[in-house]
Every structure is written in structure tokens, then in C-alpha cells.
């Protein structure tokens, strides 16, 4: 899982930089579409221009060219058509008119031809056409001339024929004259007359012949006609010769011009011949003209066709171009559409469908199916997919972690459940409202609950009801209270006996969440063992108690005389002060003190062992304690030639002054004891919120291997014998116990042969006005004078000793020997006692408690009580605590008692002051 998460995260961090693929693609697509549109627009414009060009060509060039060409064709056709009409012209005017029209056509054609140059016909071709045109023009002129000539000749012919007719008329007139009567009388014989008639006939034949010539269609016929004419003419001449000379002369004279008219150079025959020749030439010319015209038309039609072809070609070219352009336009449009489609498809494929897929993928992932995320491409969607992948993977990782955790939890739960199930103890868990959360079968089995009864959610009370009503509990009446106590923590465990005799141990513990967990253990065996153990214990305890009782009794019994001895020795010392045996008394006193000390040590240790000591912590000034100790030990020190000194300090500490004093006393005592030369220094070292009280000496020192053991009981230094007076070796053991009780660690620093330093670390106390207390405490017993004390003691020695000592302090002592002396009459005579001092063990019937109650009943409930006892068991301590009384252990040292009394006095004064103030 870790690996996958790494794998997932590394590319994620590197791929988290954005891509711009789709943006680029979008812009590229847009740009492509724009380019397409631009291309289409350009092609459209181009196509439109093509159309326009075509239209322009058709209007500007094509049409005019074709019009010109067709004009030319028309002109040439009409020009050719003029020829026959020219041939048909019979008058000069008609001919002239036609020629003028031809000239017009010629001019028009000339212009048409010149126009051709404007439409791309080469100059050479135009010259060619013009040469044809000129040739045609020339042939027209020639035709015209020939026609003129023909008309001329026709006129000549007509004139000649008219003249011939005139001549004929003249000749007929002549012959008629000759033939009439008078003429006949002139001498013409009948033969002659006949001959003349014959001549006239012949002449008539000639004239007819001549007139016939007008209808001759072929020159061959003309030639034949001419020879006929010549023959007839010869015949006529011959006939003329037969006539009389004058007649012949006359007729010959008449015939001469005729002959000239007919056969002369310009005669009728010559004229007709010339006409044939002319006609031949005319037709030749016409034919030639026709040929030229034909060629001209052919040339023109070629040119026209060429032009048409060119125009058509050009048109087709433009059409093709236009068609191509349109095709191109359509193609490009289709291409654009296709391109647009492709772009759309591309965008659809590369963006939309991928987004769709991604969306579906997201849904799928949301629905929990683990489809692979499409990661193709290298763009924003990929980024998104990447992000999704990271998201999914993170979720998956978390899910997996969760699952693992859940599994682990489940496993743990299973394990736990298994453990709970397999635990021999009954396990049950309730929530804050004491509703059942779970329990194991063991629990069920212990109480015989059915599955239904231990459904989760069942309230504890219901279960308890079941148990108490079902008589499953041996002592149902106490059960609920016990459970209540257990629940509230008043008892830590509950041992329960069921009706079937099974013992159960109930342990309940509040969980952090306020629920309750309960462990119900079957403890039959333990109970059994416990019973065994208890009996053993009882035996041991009995033995211990016997020992303690013995010790207590022994100490009690020993203390009483020791106590009394001390009191007596004090008295004795006072008395023997000025006597010779004062020294002896002092030695006895000293021995007694030693013994008392040792005995005190044993008792103290036994008390400490018994746990009967509780520290009473208070704030106080340390200096007075130190000075007191210093002055106390300075005598002994001076005797040994040691310099003992306590460094003065102003610090206040928080501790039990008595315990601390005891500890320090031990330290100093040891220091003085084990130091031969040099000095002992008591100093205070401040360590933050604590101070360390140190006792330095220049003694023998403690070997490193013995630094632990010295705190053991009855330890004796090897060399202790050399140092004279020795104790029981309990000092440091007591010190250690006390220090433990004070929670103030004792430290030891030592260098063998050079000295040691014992120190104790105690907290610094608060500054308060108790400085005076200690002073008062230390200020002797003067204040106790006049104070009334009630003393109850059933040991006459102790009673006497105590009374003497208290009286010496100036106190007014009301001594009662045993409780039976405590009568109300006696008590009533006592006024304002300071305190009650009573022994713990008075007699078999009366306890200290009763004594205190009795006295307090006589005076006030808060009358201070001091219980003095030699019993080191816990009982006197408990009783003292219950009665709010002070406890002193025998042998009571007078100083201690004085200090206690002074304290009581101070307290009473304070309360008095307080009362006064109030």
C-alpha cells in the first residue's frame, strides 16, 4: 500500500504542472476552420471573378467578334449576290446604282475587316482578306465596265438596226419609185423590172437575215449567218449588175452605207461578234469573280469559324475554368465540411468523448467500481484524469488504510473479542447510561444469562433485577448496595457469592468515555487459597501480634520505669548539683539518656515499621532548628575538640519539623561521632524550589561499597568500636524511613579518610508569620506557668514523675490516678484547664477515649487532649486521630511535652484573640 501510494504520488507531483493541449487544439481547430473559411472565400471570390471574366469576355470580346464575323459573312455573301444583278442590268443607271451599292458593301466590309484586327486576327490574314476584297472590287469594276460595254454595244446595235431600217426604207422608196409607171417609162424593160423585183426580194432577204442576227445565240451561228449574208450579198451584187447602169449605180450608191453598216468595222456583224466576245469575257470575268468570291467567302468562313472556334474555345476554357473553380469550390467546401467534421470528430474524440469517459469514470468510481482511469493524451483532460487518478488513488489508499485499520480494528476487535471470549473471566462493558455494550459467553455462563437477556442495550438495572429476583445471588439484599459502592469506586473490588456457591470477584473500572467495564472472575480457587492464606496470615499475624504485643508490652513495661527513672534522675541531678556525687549522678543520667535513646530508637523504628508515623507538614523557619541542634551538639563537639558550626539561614521550609529534626540530629550525631579531628559544618544549599540541608564532616568517610548498607537496620561501622559510645545502629535506618515518609531524598557524598556529607532535600516553605512560634517554641517553659493541666495516669510512678515535672514548669497539675478518680466533683473544681494529658491504657474497663470524652464533656468539646502511650501499634494513633488528640510515645521527653503544651497554649490564645476580635 505504501509502495502504491508512493507510485501514485510521485507522478502526481511531477504531472501536476498544467498542460495546454486542448487549448492549443481548440485554437488550432479554430484557426483551421478560419483558414478553411478563408480558402472557401478566396475560391468563391475567384470563382465569381471567373464568372465575371467570362461574362466580360463574352460581352467585350466574344460577342463583338462573332457579330463582326457574321457581318463580314453577310457582307461577302451580299457582295457576291450583287454580281448576277449587275449582269442583269440593262441600263447604265441601273448598273451605276448597283455599283454604288457594291461600293457601299465594299466600304462596310472594309470596316468589318479592319475591325477584325481588334479581335485578334493577324495583320497577314487581314491583308489576305483585303487583297481578296480588292480583287473582288476590281472584278466588280471590270464587270461593271463589261456591263457598260455590253450596254453600249447593245445601243450601237439598236442604232445600227434603226439606221438599217432607215436605209431599207430609202431603198424601198427608191425601188418603189423605179418600179412605178413613170419610172418604167424611163426605159425599164419588163425584164429589167423583173430583175429589179428580184433585187428587191434579195435585199429583203438580206434585211431579214440581218434582223435575225439579233437572236443568234452562238458565235458559230453568227459566223454561218455572216457567210450566208456574204453569199446573199454577192448574189445581190450580181443581180445589181444585171440592172441598168443608172439603176445599178443608184442602188449601189444606196447599198454602200448599208454594207458598211452591216459588215463594216463597226458594223452589225462586227458588233455582234464583239458582243459575243464581250459576253464571253463578261462570263469569264463573272466566273473568275465567282471563284474569287468563293475563295473569299471560304477564307472569311474559315476566319469566322476560327473566331467562333476561338470564342467557343475560350468560352469553353472559361467554362471549364469556372467549372473547375466550382468543382474546386465544391470540393474545398466539402473538404471544409469534412475538415470541420473531422475537427469536430477529433474534438469529440479527443475532448468531449474523453470528458464523457472521464465523467462516466468518475461516476463509476463514485459508485465504487474500480475502472482504470483513461490517462491517454497529454493535455488538460489528462491533467484532469491525472488529478482524478490521484484523487481516486488517495481515496483508495485512504480506503485501504481505512480498511486495513478497520481490519486491524476488526482483527483487534476479534482478537479482543477472542481474548475476551477465551478469557476465563466474565467480561462485560456498559456505556455511560449503563446499557450493555458487550459481554462474553463466560459472563453469560457465570450468571446463566440467555442470549436474549444480554442483548446489547440491555440496562444494568435489568440485569441486576434478573440476578436479584432470580435468586442467583447468595445475599441479594446487600448486592445492590455493594454494586453501588463498587460503581462509585468506594470499593475497588467486590467478591460475590452466588447461590450455587460459586465465588465471583467483580472488578469495575470506569472507562475514559464514562462507560463501565466489569471483570467477573470465578475465584473459587482463589477464595480457597485465600482462606488457606488467610489462615496462614492469621497465624503469622497472630505471631506478629504476639511479637508486637510483646514488644509493645515490653516497651510499655520498660518505658514506665525508664520514664520514671528519667524523671527521677532529673530531680536527682537538680538536687546533686552541689554535691560530690554530682559527677556520678551525671554519669547515671548520661547512661540513662543513652539507654533511653537506644530504647527510643528501637521504639521509633518499631513505630516506623508499624507505619504508625505520618508526617505533619508545615511551613517553618529552618534557622532556629539548625541553631538549636548546633548548640545542642556543640558541647559534645567541643569535648572531642571539633569545631561544630551551623551556617545561619533565613530560609523557610515545608516539612515535618520533628521528623526533620530527628533526621538532622542523626546526621549531626553521626558526624560528631565519626569525626576525630577537624570540624562539622551544617549548611544549607538552595536548589530551585528546594533546599539541601547538608552536614559536612572531616571524619573517616564511608567506603563506596558500604554506602547503601549503612541505611540498613543495626548497621555498625567497622570502626565504630574505636569511637566510643555507640548506638544500636538504628539511626540511619530511622533516618531513611523518615526521609521516605517526608519524600525528601537523603544523599550521601563521601571520600574515605577525608570526610562525608549527608544531605536531605526538602521543599522551600511559604513565608508566614510563624517565626515567632518557633521562637516561642524555643523560648523555654516560662509561659506555661500558671496553666492548669489535667493528668490521668494509672501508673503511680509515672503519675508522680509527670506531676513533679509539670509542676516544676509552673503548671498547676490536677493529677488523677486512674479514671475512677475522675469524678464530676473534682472536675468541677478545675477552672480553665489548658489540656488533658492521659495515658492510653488506663485499665481494663476504661479507655483513653472514654477519659477524653468525660473530660471534654466537663469542659468543652475542643479541649486539647494529649494521649501518652507506650503502645506502638496503630490503635492509639487511630484513637488519637479520631479524638483529634495529640499522641506522645513513652518515654516522653520533657522538652517534647513542653513544646506540645506551648503549641496548645498558643492555639488557645489565638482562638481567644479571634474571639476577642469577633
Amino acid at each position, binding site marked *: 500500500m505504501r509502495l502504491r501510494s508512493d507510485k501514485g504520488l510521485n507522478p502526481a507531483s511531477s504531472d501536476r504542472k498544467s498542460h495546454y493541449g486542448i487549448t492549443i487544439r481548440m485554437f488550432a481547430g479554430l484557426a483551421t476552420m478560419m483558414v478553411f473559411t478563408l480558402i472557401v472565400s478566396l475560391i468563391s471570390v475567384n470563382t465569381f471573378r471567373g464568372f465575371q471574366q467570362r461574362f466580360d469576355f463574352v460581352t467585350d470580346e466574344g460577342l463583338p467578334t462573332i457579330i463582326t464575323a457574321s457581318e463580314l459573312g453577310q457582307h461577302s455573301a451580299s457582295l457576291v449576290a450583287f454580281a448576277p444583278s449587275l449582269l442583269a442590268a440593262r441600263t447604265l443607271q441601273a448598273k451605276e446604282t448597283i455599283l454604288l451599292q457594291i461600293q457601299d458593301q465594299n466600304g462596310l466590309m472594309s470596316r468589318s475587316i479592319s475591325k477584325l484586327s481588334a479581335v485578334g486576327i493577324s495583320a497577314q490574314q487581314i491583308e489576305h482578306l483585303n487583297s481578296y476584297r480588292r480583287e473582288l472590287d476590281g472584278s466588280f469594276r471590270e464587270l461593271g465596265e463589261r456591263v457598260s460595254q455590253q450596254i453600249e454595244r447593245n445601243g450601237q446595235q439598236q442604232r445600227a438596226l434603226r439606221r438599217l431600217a432607215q436605209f431599207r426604207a430609202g431603198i424601198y422608196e427608191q425601188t418603189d419609185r423605179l418600179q412605178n409607171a413613170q419610172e418604167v417609162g424611163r426605159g425599164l424593160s419588163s425584164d429589167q423590172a423583173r430583175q429589179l423585183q428580184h433585187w428587191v426580194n434579195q435585199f429583203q432577204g438580206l434585211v431579214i437575215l440581218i434582223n435575225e442576227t439579233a437572236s443568234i445565240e452562238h458565235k458559230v451561228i453568227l459566223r454561218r449567218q455572216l457567210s450566208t449574208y456574204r453569199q446573199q450579198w454577192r448574189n445581190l451584187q450580181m443581180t445589181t449588175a444585171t440592172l441598168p447602169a443608172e439603176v445599178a449605180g443608184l442602188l449601189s450608191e444606196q447599198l454602200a452605207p448599208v454594207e458598211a453598216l452591216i459588215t463594216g468595222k463597226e458594223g452589225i456583224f462586227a458588233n455582234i461578234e464583239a458582243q459575243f466576245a464581250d459576253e464571253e469575257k463578261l462570263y*469569264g470575268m463573272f466566273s473568275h469573280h465567282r471563284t474569287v468570291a468563293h475563295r473569299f467567302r471560304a477564307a472569311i*468562313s474559315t476566319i469566322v469559324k476560327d473566331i467562333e472556334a476561338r470564342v467557343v474555345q475560350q468560352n469553353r476554357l472559361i467554362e471549364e475554368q469556372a467549372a473547375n473553380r466550382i468543382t474546386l469550390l465544391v470540393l474545398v467546401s466539402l473538404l471544409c465540411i469534412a475538415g470541420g467534421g473531422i475537427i469536430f470528430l477529433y474534438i469529440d474524440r479527443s475532448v468531449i468523448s474523453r470528458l464523457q469517459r472521464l465523467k462516466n469514470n468518475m461516476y463509476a468510481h463514485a459508485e465504487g467500481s474500480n475502472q482504470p482511469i483513461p490517462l491517454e493524451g497529454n493535455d488538460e483532460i489528462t491533467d484532469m484524469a491525472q488529478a482524478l487518478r490521484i484523487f481516486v488513488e488517495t481515496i483508495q489508499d485512504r480506503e485501504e488504510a481505512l480498511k486495513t485499520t478497520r481490519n486491524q480494528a476488526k482483527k483487534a476487535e476479534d482478537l479482543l473479542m477472542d481474548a475476551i471470549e477465551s478469557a476465563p473471566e466474565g467480561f462485560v462493558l456498559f456505556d455511560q447510561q449503563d446499557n450493555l455494550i458487550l459481554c462474553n459467553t463466560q459472563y453469560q455462563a457465570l450468571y446463566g444469562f440467555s442470549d436474549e437477556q444480554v442483548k446489547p442495550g440491555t440496562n444494568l438495572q435489568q440485569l441486576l433485577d434478573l440476578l436479584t429476583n432470580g435468586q442467583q445471588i447468595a445475599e441479594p439484599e446487600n448486592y445492590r448496595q455493594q454494586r453501588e459502592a463498587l460503581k462509585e469506586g468506594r470499593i475497588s473490588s467486590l467478591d460475590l457469592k452466588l447461590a450455587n456457591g460459586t465465588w465471583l470477584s467483580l472488578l469495575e473500572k470506569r472507562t475514559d468515555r464514562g462507560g463501565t467495564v466489569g471483570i467477573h472472575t470465578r475465584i473459587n480457587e482463589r477464595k480457597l487459597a485465600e482462606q488457606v492464606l488467610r489462615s496462614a496470615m492469621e497465624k503469622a499475624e497472630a505471631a506478629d501480634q504476639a511479637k508486637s504485643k510483646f514488644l509493645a508490652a515490653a516497651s510499655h513495661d520498660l518505658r514506665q520505669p525508664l520514664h520514671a527513672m528519667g524523671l527521677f534522675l532529673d530531680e536527682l541531678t537538680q538536687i546533686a548539683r552541689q554535691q560530690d556525687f554530682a559527677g556520678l549522678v551525671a554519669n547515671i543520667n548520661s547512661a540513662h539518656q543513652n539507654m533511653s535513646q537506644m530504647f527510643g530508637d528501637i521504639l521509633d523504628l518499631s513505630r516506623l515499621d508499624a507505619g504508625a508515623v505520618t508526617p505533619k507538614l508545615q511551613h517553618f523557619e529552618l534557622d532556629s532548628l539548625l541553631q538549636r541542634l548546633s548548640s545542642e551538639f556543640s558541647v559534645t563537639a567541643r569535648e572531642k575538640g571539633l569545631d561544630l558550626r551551623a551556617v545561619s539561614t533565613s530560609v523557610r521550609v515545608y516539612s515535618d519539623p520533628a521528623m526533620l529534626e530527628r533526621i538532622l540530629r542523626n546526621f549531626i550525631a553521626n558526624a560528631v561521632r565519626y569525626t576525630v579531628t577537624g570540624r562539622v559544618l551544617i549548611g544549607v544549599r538552595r536548589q530551585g524550589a528546594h533546599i539541601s540541608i547538608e552536614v559536612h564532616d572531616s571524619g573517616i568517610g564511608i567506603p563506596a561499597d558500604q554506602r547503601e548498607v549503612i541505611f540498613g537496620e543495626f548497621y555498625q561501622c567497622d570502626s565504630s568500636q574505636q569511637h566510643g559510645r555507640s548506638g544500636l545502629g538504628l539511626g540511619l535506618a530511622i533516618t531513611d524511613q523518615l526521609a521516605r515518609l517526608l519524600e525528601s531524598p537523603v544523599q550521601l557524598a563521601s571520600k574515605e579518610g577525608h570526610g562525608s556529607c549527608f544531605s536531605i532535600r526538602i521543599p522551600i516553605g511559604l513565608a508566614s508569620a510563624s517565626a515567632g512560634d518557633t521562637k516561642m517554641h524555643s523560648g523555654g517553659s516560662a509561659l506555661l506557668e500558671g496553666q492548669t493541666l489535667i493528668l490521668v495516669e494509672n501508673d503511680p510512678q509515672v503519675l508522680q514523675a509527670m506531676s513533679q515535672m509539670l509542676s516544676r514548669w509552673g503548671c498547676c497539675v490536677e493529677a488523677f490516678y486512674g479514671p475512677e478518680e475522675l469524678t464530676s466533683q473534682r472536675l468541677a473544681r478545675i477552672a480553665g484547664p489548658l489540656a488533658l494529658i492521659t495515658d492510653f491504657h488506663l485499665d481494663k474497663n476504661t479507655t483513653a477515649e472514654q477519659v477524653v470524652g468525660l473530660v471534654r464533656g466537663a469542659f468543652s468539646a475542643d479541649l486539647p487532649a494529649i494521649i501518652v502511650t507506650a503502645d506502638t501499634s496503630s490503635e492509639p494513633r487511630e484513637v488519637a486521630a479520631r479524638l483529634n488528640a495529640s499522641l506522645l510515645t513513652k518515654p516522653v521527653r520533657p522538652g517534647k511535652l513542653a513544646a506540645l503544651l506551648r503549641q496548645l497554649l498558643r492555639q488557645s490564645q489565638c482562638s481567644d484573640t479571634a474571639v476577642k476580635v469577633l
Partner: protein
Amino acid sequence: MMTKTLFRLLTGLVISVGLFSSALQASTLNDIRDRGYLLCGVGIDDFGFATRNKQGVWQGFDVDFCRAVATAALQDPEAVQFVPLDSQSRFRALANNEIDLLIRTTTWTFARDVSLKVHFAGTTLHDEQVFLARKKLNLSSIHEVAGSRVCVTRGTTSLGNLQNFIAANGLALEVMPVETQAGRWQAFLQQQCDLMTSERSDLQGGLLGLVDDPERYVILPEVVSREPLGPVVRDDDPQWFDLVRWVIASTLIAEHYQLSRSNIEQLDISVLAPEARRLVTGEGLPAEALALDARWAFRVIRDVGSYAEIYARNFGRGSGFAMPRGKNALWSQGGLLYAPPLR
């Protein structure tokens, strides 16, 4: 005058009797002689065959043969009235006596010979039908055409030949019949048709005379048909038929003996071959059977020339046609032209 009138009456009577007595026995020769000239049907602007020069003088291959007949029959090569005819009206003109003789690039075919009451008096030119195409079409063979239109003159053998040829060769040609020869040329020149078919001589003549730019056209190598061209006469006058046939033969014989216009008058007759001598002198030949004098052939050669001269004048190098003789060589030269013996 009386005698003349009487003569005319008699002549009219004779003619009418003659007409009555036998439709078969018409005398064309007499008619011609009476008329004084020969009516010869020729083509219109038929280049190489019948055209008029600038001076109005008729020229051409067909014209020359008309003149030969005229000079044989009328002793005057000028005694001819040329009657220009288009291809469709030519046989009608002959049948209607509008002409005496038809020499108008007319192909001798069976149908014409047997159904039109005409006789083909021989072959003056062995022609062939070919195609004329614009060079622009870039054709080297008629088989390369596709969807082209071909112009052909109606009433000619060319049309039938063409249809047969198209059918036979499966050509994709559209036939466009045109009424006249001139119209065909015009249609062709105006590019209403891409191709034109006719006799080679006709196409070449047209290129020479009618076309402004002959170099833009090409004659394709395929030959559609054989076209024997010759003079046609009515079939009612065997004498006239024979006359025409032998006039043509005389030109061939003259060529065979290398007689020509230039040498005929200065000939030493004694050195001539007998047949040549007979040709020149007419000795021993029954010319009267044709109602001709003995010198008819001499006149033909003197006034018109031998076949070689006629051919050279009209189709030879100087003419612009520059057509090789080819099949139109004498039998002795490996050609098809053949004359029966003159004896």
C-alpha cells in the same frame, strides 16, 4: 425564199416523219449540224473539268473532250455551247435533249447504264472516291474518325458508296447529304461537316479553285470506290454513241503513237504506223458510217490534242493538280486506258 421556206417545211416534215417513223433512229449529229453547234453538258465551276477563265474561255478535261467531239462532228472546236449542270439535273438535261452530250465527271454504273436510257461512251478518267479532311482533325486514316460528319453530294455515286463503305467498315460517321457540289464545298468550308467525300479529282479541283487555304486539308489514303468517269449519250442514237466513243479512242491512239497538237501538222505521214496513218488520214476507214469526213480524227488531234496532252493540260504539273497518271495511263503503260484497234 420560197425554196428556203419549202426546204424548211420539208425538213420539218422529214423530222416529224423521222420522229414518228422511229424513236430509235434520232440523228443527234444532224441536229447538231442544223443547230450549228454542240450542246455539251458540263459541271459548274468544276475545277480541272469545266471552268471558265477570266477571258470567258471554257477550260478543263471535260471541256476538252466536248471540243474534241465538236471538232470531229462540226469541224469546229469552238462550235460547242457548254451547259453547266449540277449533278442532279444532268441526266434530266440529257434526256430532255437540252444537251447532246454529257461529260460531267459522271461515273459509269450499271444502274445508270441500264435504267436511265443512256449509254456510257467510254471512260475518260479512272477516278476513285476518297475523303477530304481538315488537317486540324489530325487524321491519318478514315478509320480514326469518331462521331464526325461527312458531307456528300446527293444524286452522286459517292453517297451510295459512302453508305456502303460506312456499313462495311463500321465507321462512326454521320452522313450529311448536300444538294450541289458547290453547296457541299460551302458546307465543308463553313465547317458544318468535318469530312467531305467525292472523287479525288473533284476534291483536288475544289482545293485548287474554291479553297483559300488548301494546305489546311488533307486527302485520306482510303479509297471508297472506283469511279470510271466518261461521256454519256442518250441510248437512242447509236451513230452518235459510236462517234463519241471513237473520238475518245482517237485521243488514246494518238497518245499511243505520240501524235500531238504540236506535231500533227508537220508529220511525215509516210513514217507513221499504219494505224496512226489511218488516224491522221482516215484512209480505209468507213467514216461515212458515222457521217463524218475522213479527217475527223486529225482535227481532234490538231484542235484538242492527244489524251496525254489533255491530261497534262488539265491535271499535269502545270495545272496545280499534279495528279500522276496512275490508272489513267495507256494499256501499254500499265494503265487501264485502252482503245480498240482503229481499222
